[in-house]
């Protein structure tokens, strides 16, 4: 409760929270608010020469190259992209945190093995994994989410590993051991909270990159398949039209940016609020 109240006291956090809320609500309410069926290729959605329609008039944000209403596609696309940006990216950060912490805490043989495994994963081409999975499995949103999680945890793990090694050296961890705390308790209650700032940075910057990554992977065939929209694939499908039909790139690009930024504002505020050492500081 106090957390919420502190959150409300910061204008930037409030703004971020509002944007996040609006995006989530619009995504959930897409069928109610979308003016058109997102997949319908409308006859009057293309000019006679087959060019997409610019924003305005019947189509508020214009149409895409198949004559579909961009606004409706973006509303439905929010569902896909939020799942990728939040769930897939969240899982990646979670795995990264887990492996990084455990490797950094355990050191010794197990820690070394975990870290070399991370190195191996880093050296391994993610694209290839995606392609093989695409060929072997029925494509779905959840598979692309899984691949993103599988690929993106590596960097987080590396950074977390470094930080954890620093934390383990700190005296309060030894103090905790002297009280008889088990490994689980130390990891969860005394190391994890200190990694929240890192998690927030990676979690929020990661939203934007994973939403775009989803489009690349879908393009390779493992993600959502056409015509299901996502912010990433709306951009991807029509990025070469950015001169002829700039709205096709601009609007989805802006929502990705805005969403990531909003989560970041909330995240930054939360970090400051959750960190007692930041209390009362500028």
């Amino acid at each position: 409760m106090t957390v919420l109240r502190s959150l409300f006291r910061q204008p930037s956090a409030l703004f971020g929270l509002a944007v996040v809320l609006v995006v989530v609500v619009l995504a959930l309410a897409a069928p109610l608010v979308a003016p058109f069926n997102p997949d319908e290729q409308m006859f009057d959605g293309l000019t006679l020469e087959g060019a997409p329609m610019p924003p305005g008039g019947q189509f508020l944000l214009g149409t895409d190259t198949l004559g579909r209403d961009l606004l409706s596609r973006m509303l439905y696309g929010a569902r896909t992209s939020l799942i990728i940006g939040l769930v897939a990216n969240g899982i990646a950060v979670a795995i990264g945190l887990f492996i990084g912490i455990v490797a950094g805490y355990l050191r010794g043989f197990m820690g070394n093995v975990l870290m070399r495994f991370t190195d191996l994963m880093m050296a391994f081409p993610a694209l290839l994994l995606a392609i093989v999975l695409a060929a072997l499995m029925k494509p779905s949103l959840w598979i692309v989410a899984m691949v993103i999680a599988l690929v993106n945890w590596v960097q987080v793990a590396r950074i977390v590993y470094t930080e954890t090694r620093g934390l383990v050296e700190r005296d309060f961890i030894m103090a905790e051991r002297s009280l008889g705390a088990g490994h689980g308790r130390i990891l969860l209650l005394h190391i994890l909270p200190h990694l929240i700032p890192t998690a927030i940075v990676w979690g929020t910057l990661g939203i934007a990159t994973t939403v775009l990554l989803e489009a690349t992977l879908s393009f390779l065939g493992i993600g959502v398949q056409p015509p299901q929209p996502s912010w990433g694939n709306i951009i991807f499908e029509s990025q070469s039209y950015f001169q002829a039909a700039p709205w096709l790139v601009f609007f989805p690009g802006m929502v990705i940016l805005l969403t990531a930024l909003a989560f970041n504002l909330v995240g930054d505020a939360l970090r400051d609020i959750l960190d007692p050492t930041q209390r009362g500081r500028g």
Partner: protein
Amino acid sequence: MTETKPTGAPVLSVERLSVDARTPEGLKRVLDDISFDLYPGETLCIAGESGSGKSVTSLSIMGLLPKASLKVTSGKIRLGERELTTLSNSQMRHIRGGEIAMIFQEPMTSLNPVMNIGAQLVEAIREHQGSANPEATALEMLEAVQISDPARRLKQFPHELSGGMRQRVMIAMALSCRPKVLIADEPTTALDVTVQAQILELMRKLKAEFGTSIIMITHDMGVVAEMADRVVIMQQGRIVEQGPSVEVFGHPRELYTRQLLAAVPRLGALAGTDGPPRVSKSAIAPAQRGTAPVLHVTDLSVTYGGASGLIFKRKAPPATVDGISFDIMPGETMGLVGESGSGKSTTGKAVLGLIPFSGSVQIEGRDIAGLSQHDMRPFRRSAQMIFQDPYASLDPRMSVGKAVAEPLVIHGIGNASERQDRVAELLRRVGLTPDAATRYPHEFSGGQRQRICIARALALEPKLIVADESVAALDVSVRARVLDLMLELQETMGLAYLFISHDMAVIERMSHKVAVMRGGRIVETGTRRDIFENPREDYTQALMAAVPIPDPTVYRKC
């Protein structure tokens, strides 16, 4: 008494200076209308309790107050004819380092870890003197502070030097531009007595050589007595008393000053008694102490970094603790004393199984060698540690209440509300109000943090506490209170202490037995009386001789 009265115009004068701090609850005055003068060639000591504004004063003079939270609201600081508070940052730059230099409270962290000593010295010299050959000047300065092998030091990095060497480098750096004023903020707190004595000696010499005036901030009245020409006593942001040191020590006017002086433990004050002085009314009879040792250590050795690689065997480094043995009986305090780096903390950690060791350690008769974290748990209930740095040993993200309840939760003692009561009781016991439970470590002063750590260690009602430098960072008044609390607990609960300190006076006050460590070995051990009244080893004697005596007249006699 050959003291000369200060003559001429002051080099530095502070007039009616006030500083406000921005806090969540609004502005708070931390310096209130303080005035003092510093005359050429004089040493002015500022003493006072923790949080009284000593550091803020020195930072104000340097123009280094953190802008975001602290602000000079009124008053003047004059260096010669120049008014400093109104100078721009770039004008102030030329004063800093050039005319006023400063040595900070933390010698360990005040040197840049990634630059070598030479570069850091040269940089300061070049900035203010434009001397033709700054490298040569740097070498001269290192020679002046009597560092061993000065030419080699230029190429070394801070972490390769001991604490004492680092402090010498800091002094060389501060003096390299021949400043008119040197501000030294607790320059020796972190150092052991022998090194402290050398540093103080050095500063005295340099003052004469370079004609520098010194402002020295310290909470150690012994140091004040040894160094000061004049003394300023501060309390809660105000100056309560100032005057020549002989007068202040000899005839303190203010009650606070008298309390400060009374709280100082004096070496040899307890000569002729066997144990620490009694502080409580209800005491356990000595018979209840029991006869079996609570801690039995035989042939304990610790080697850092000894783990060998999978393929390539490394040569094992020399042992940090090398084959030491001792016993502690219930209700007994063993003092462990020795120079910095002699292995005291390492010993303390090893006997609680916190670091790998060889040899045998028995707690209440059972061997703890090679036990896993899980198997150690029963022993944790009977043996606890108070770490050298209380701030570092508290999780900054955990409230104090939770921190104190932590051992209870870990060992599954009581339910939530019972634990809450117990925490309140423990906090009261160590002299904190129960509302402390909801606050976080950084919101407490050093002494309070130390008491929190003590409360946490007591929560499990252990039989043995390893207290590592538990009072070194505290000013005298707080230190006395903490020591009394520990004695009281020993008397009422039959606690045994392994009491680690480099301060001989504190050891004398607390111990039944004393072990003197050097280079990882115990060089001398015996009852407190043996050690303090008939020290056999030269090293022990040297340790005792180096303790400053809080009486300005005593020093001047010798």
